[in-house]
C-alpha cells in the first residue's frame, strides 16, 4: 500500500486519483443500482429473470473506462454492469425490466435484452456464447465498410474511422493515458502485447463480454478463429466467476487448464488478471486496447471474479450448498468497492463524505428511474405483431449506417 502511494506520487497523482474516483463512482453506481433492483424485485413488478452482477463491478468499470463513445459493446444475460458502465440509460433499463414501452427495448426484451445504441451498447442476449461471434461480426462489418469501395460508402456510413474516433478515445482515457500500466501479472513467453506505434490510424474496437461458461461453447472458438484470421479489433472479456449457474468449473473444464490459454491456442493474445481490482482491470484493458487499436488483432482478458447473489434473482443462495460459505466470504472480502474504496480514501482520491454524496446522488437517480419506469405505460397489444419485421428503408438502419 505504501509502495503504491509513493509510486503514484511519482507518476502523476492527480491523474491516478481521477481514475480512482471515476472507477469507484462507476462501480458504486452499478452496485447501488443492482442492490436497488434486488430490493424491489419482491414487489413483482419486474417480471423477468434478472442476473445481477454484484461483486463483479470492477470488470465493467475497468474495461469500459478505457472505451470511447465510438467503441461498441455486446454482452450476455448478466449485462446490467456493462450497460451502465458503457453509458446506457438507467431509466430505459429500469423501464425495460418493468416491461414498459419506454424501456430500452420497448418492453420486448426485458433484463436479458438490453440495448442503448446511442451509448454504443449494441445489445445483450442470454444464449450462452452467442453474442461473441456477433460482436466479431460487428467489428468485421465495420472493417468492411471502412474499406469497401472508396467513396460510395462514405455518405451512407458517415464516419471515417480515424482521427475523430481516436480523439474520442484519447479524451475518455486521458486519465489512464498518463498512468503507467501495472506490470502484467502473468508473463507469457511468445505472447506479448504488440504496442509498437500503430501503422493504421487507431481503430474503434468492439468488446464482447461473456462468462467463463461461454468459453465451452463452440461459438466462442469459431469467433476467436475468425477474429484472429481477419485481425479484427475485438477485445474479448471473459469474466471468470467460477460458476455457470450452479456448476463449478471442475465439472466443465479440464483441471489446471486456465481459460485464457484457450485464446492462445487460437493465436489470440491473452492475459489473466484480478477481476476484483478495478485498477488492475483498467490497466490490463488499457494495454490490451493499445494492441487492438493499433490494428494488431484481437485480444482476450480473463478476469477472475465472483458473483455474490444467486445466478438469477435477487437473493443469496449459498444455503443451497453448491458453493461454500467460506468461499463466498473469501471473495466477499475481496469486494472491488471495498478494495478501491480503501485505496482511494488512503491516497486521498476521495473522502468518505464524497462517497456518501455519490451514494445519495445515485440513490436519487435510481429512485427517479424507478418512478419513471413505474409511471410509464405498458406496450399496447397492437404493438405486438407489427414490429416483427423491419420495414424496408426504415429509419432503423440509419443507426447501423452511422455506427
Amino acid at each position, binding site marked *: 500500500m505504501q509502495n503504491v502511494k509513493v509510486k503514484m506520487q511519482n507518476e502523476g497523482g492527480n491523474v491516478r486519483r481521477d481514475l480512482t474516483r471515476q472507477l469507484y463512482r462507476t462501480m458504486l453506481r452499478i452496485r447501488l443500482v443492482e442492490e436497488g433492483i434486488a430490493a424491489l424485485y419482491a414487489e413483482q413488478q419486474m417480471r423477468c429473470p*434478472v442476473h445481477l452482477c454484484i461483486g463483479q463491478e470492477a470488470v465493467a468499470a475497468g474495461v469500459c473506462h478505457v472505451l470511447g463513445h465510438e467503441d461498441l459493446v455486446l454482452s450476455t444475460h448478466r449485462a446490467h454492469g456493462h450497460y451502465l458502465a458503457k453509458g446506457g440509460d438507467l431509466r430505459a433499463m429500469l423501464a425495460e425490466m418493468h416491461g414498459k414501452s419506454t424501456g430500452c427495448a420497448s418492453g420486448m426484451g426485458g*433484463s436479458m435484452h438490453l440495448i442503448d445504441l446511442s451509448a454504443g451498447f449494441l445489445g445483450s442476449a442470454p444464449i450462452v456464447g452467442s453474442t461473441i461471434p456477433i460482436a466479431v461480426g460487428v467489428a468485421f462489418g465495420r472493417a468492411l465498410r471502412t474499406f469497401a469501395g472508396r467513396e460510395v460508402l462514405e455518405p451512407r456510413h458517415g464516419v471515417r474511422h480515424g482521427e475523430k474516433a481516436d480523439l474520442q478515445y484519447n479524451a475518455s482515457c486521458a486519465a489512464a493515458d498518463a498512468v503507467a500500466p501495472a506490470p502484467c501479472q502473468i508473463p507469457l513467453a511468445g505472447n506479448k502485447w504488440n504496442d509498437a506505434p500503430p501503422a493504421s490510424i487507431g481503430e474503434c474496437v468492439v468488446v464482447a463480454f461473456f462468462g467463463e461458461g461461454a468459453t465451452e461453447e463452440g461459438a466462442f472458438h469459431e469467433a476467436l478463429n475468425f477474429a484472429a484470421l481477419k485481425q479484427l479489433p475485438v477485445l474479448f472479456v471473459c469474466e471468470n466467476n467460477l460458476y455457470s449457474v450452479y456448476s463449478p468449473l471442475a465439472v466443465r473444464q479440464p483441471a489446471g487448464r486456465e481459460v485464457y490459454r484457450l485464446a492462445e491456442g487460437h493465436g489470440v493474445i491473452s492475459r489473466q488478471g484480478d477481476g476484483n481490482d478495478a485498477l488492475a482491470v483498467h490497466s490490463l484493458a488499457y494495454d490490451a486496447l493499445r494492441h487492438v487499436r493499433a490494428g494488431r488483432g484481437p485480444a482476450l482478458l480473463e478476469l477472475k471474479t465472483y458473483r455474490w447473489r444467486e445466478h438469477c434473482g435477487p437473493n443469496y443462495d449459498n444455503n443451497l450448498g453448491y458453493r461454500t460459505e467460506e468461499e463466498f466470504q473469501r471473495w466477499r472480502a475481496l469486494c472491488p468497492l471495498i478494495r478501491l474504496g480503501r485505496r482511494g480514501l488512503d491516497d486521498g482520491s476521495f473522502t468518505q463524505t464524497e462517497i456518501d454524496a455519490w451514494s445519495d446522488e445515485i440513490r436519487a437517480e435510481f429512485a427517479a428511474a424507478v418512478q419513471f419506469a413505474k409511471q410509464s405505460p405498458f406496450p399496447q397489444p397492437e404493438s405486438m*405483431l407489427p414490429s416483427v419485421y423491419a420495414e424496408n428503408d426504415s429509419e432503423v438502419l440509419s443507426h447501423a449506417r452511422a455506427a
Partner: protein
Amino acid sequence: MRELKYYQAIHEATDLCMARDESVYIIGLGATDPKGVFGTTAGLDRKYGSRRVMDMPCAENGMTGVVLGSALAGMRPIMVHQRIDFALLAMEQIVNQAAKWHYMFGGRTAAPLVIRLLVGRGWGQGPQHSQSLHSWFAHIPGLKVVVPSTPQDAKGLLISAIEDDNPVIFIEHRWLHNISGPVPEGMYRVPLGQARVLRPGSDVTIVAISHMALEAHRAAETLAAEGIEAEVIDPRTLRPFDEETIIDSVRRTGRLIVADTSWRHAGFAAEVVARVAEEVGGSLKCPPRRIALPECPTPTSPALAAHFYPTAADIVAAACQMVQGRTWRPAVAASSFCDVPDASFTGPF
C-alpha cells in the same frame, strides 16, 4: 390412486429405469444442481453417484455428439436441456446424426437416447427462453417425439422413451411441471404412438398439444356448462402419430379444433388439420380451427403475455362459434398479468 406432480412423475420414471438398467444415465447442465432441473432429477445424483447423474460443459452440440457416441457404446443416456431454445445449438447432431445413425448404416447400430427439452413460459422468459419447437422435431424421420400433458403419461411415456432403441425427444412444458394427477406405482409403459382421449364428448373434437391439453380440459368444463360436449384428445406423441383416434373422434363430432403451444404457421396443428381434411374433410360440419401462437417472437413484457398466449377462453369461444354459431364472452375479464401459471410462481424462473 395416489397423486403425484408431473415433475415427480418424471423423477420416478427416471429413478425406476436407472435402478433397473445400469446403462441409463443422466447428463445435462444442472442435472446435479441443488434444484435438480425443477425437481425432476433431485437426489438422483446422491442415489446413483456422479457417474450416472452428471453435469456437463456448456456445449450443447458437442455434448449431443458425446451422448450419441455413448449410446453407440451401449449406454442409454438421458440428456436434459433446461430450455428447448438451447437445443437449437444441437440440431446438427440431433437431426443429421442421431436421427439417421441407425438408418444410414443399414441398421447395424442403434442410438437409444432420450433428449428432454423444457419449454419455458411466463415471467418474462422472452424471445429466447420460451419457444415451442416440437413441430420441428416431429418433421424428422428417425426421431420420436413425445409431449406428455399429465403426470401419468409423463411417467409412462418417459419409461417407454428410455427403453426405446431410438432417439426420443421428450418435451416438457414448464407450466405442467407442477400440476398434480394420479400416477400408478411401479413400472408401466405408455406406448409411443397412441393418443389419449382426455375427455369424451360428441359435439366437437379438441386436439390439444402439451400445455394446451390443460387449457382444453378447462375449456371443456366451461363448454359443458354452455351445453357443449367437447371431446379432448391429447396426441401424446407427435411422431409416431396416432391419426386413428383423432379421425374416429372427428367422424363422430364433425368438428375439429386444434390447440397448440407453438406458432400456427407451419406448426404441428397444421398436420392435424391436414390429416383430418384428407380423411374426413367431406363430413365436417364446419371448417376446422387452429388455436396457436400469433406470428411473433415471445414478447417479454408481462402486459403482452395475455395477448400472446391463447387460453381456455379462446378454445371456448371457438367451440361456441362452431357448435352454436354464437359469440361467447367470458363471465369475468382475465385478471392482471397472465404470465404465471399460479400464485406460487414468482420468478425469477
